[in-house]
């Protein structure tokens, strides 16, 4: 892989990882929210 493609790949890897963390946090919050509703 060239340095150019590595840079673009790493950029999106960082953003996708962050988005993944946000999705996981949302799922956990949703669980807490549903438990509160009960």
């Amino acid at each position, binding site marked *: 892989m060239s340095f150019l493609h590595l840079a673009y790949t790493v950029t999106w890897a960082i*953003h996708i990882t962050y988005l993944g963390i946000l999705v996981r946090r949302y799922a956990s919050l949703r669980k807490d929210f549903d438990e509160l509703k009960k």
Partner: protein
Amino acid sequence: MKTVFPILAILTGVLLGYCAYQALVVAPTDQMQGDIYRIIYYHVPSAWTAFILFAVNLVGSIIYLIWRNPKADMHALVGAEMGVVFLSVNLTTGPIWARPVWGIWWTWDWRLTSTLVVWLIYVSYLILRRFSSAGETPVMAAVVGIFGALCVPFVYFSIWFFRTQHPQPVIGGGGSMDPQMLHVLLLNWLAFLCFGALVYWSRYRYEFLRREVDEAQAMQALAETRGTR
């Protein structure tokens, strides 16, 4: 907003794809560096977007310190967190670009070092927010955030004031850039801003809901404690 958000997300995805095509295929090849210079289309917009997010953190922190407005605190937190993400992209793509062009991954020059220092300040800010449960945490974090934001102009102007390994500014600093390259650079920045705005909105909404859930859990725990007495 429930129906608008997916449409905006799709439009942003299309814009990002179009901008990546412009950056990798349409923009002219640099005579000195060849194709490797195309890293600029992600490296620079990431830094600019991070600086805007740190400015959001600064404004939010100041408003929180003056009026203790919880929404300002939420904006400050989201600005810092996303700013760290975008600056991480900048700090990672930089060495990947430096290796083939300079022959080294890293050097302790003013621009690189000051960028790393700002990144570390905001990481400290996030660690403080994450692990301190004291009531005064938002106040302490606001002070750290203001301190970090004050360092940002130094990062930006470091290549104006000092001779560095990092190139001199090509925009607004006496340098020049091919108009087509500049057009693609600004287009990519616009795409990053749209992407950042969408993620920002989601993150802010999450923070808002999280605080509501925390508050409801605290109220429930209090009610249960009173009930057992």
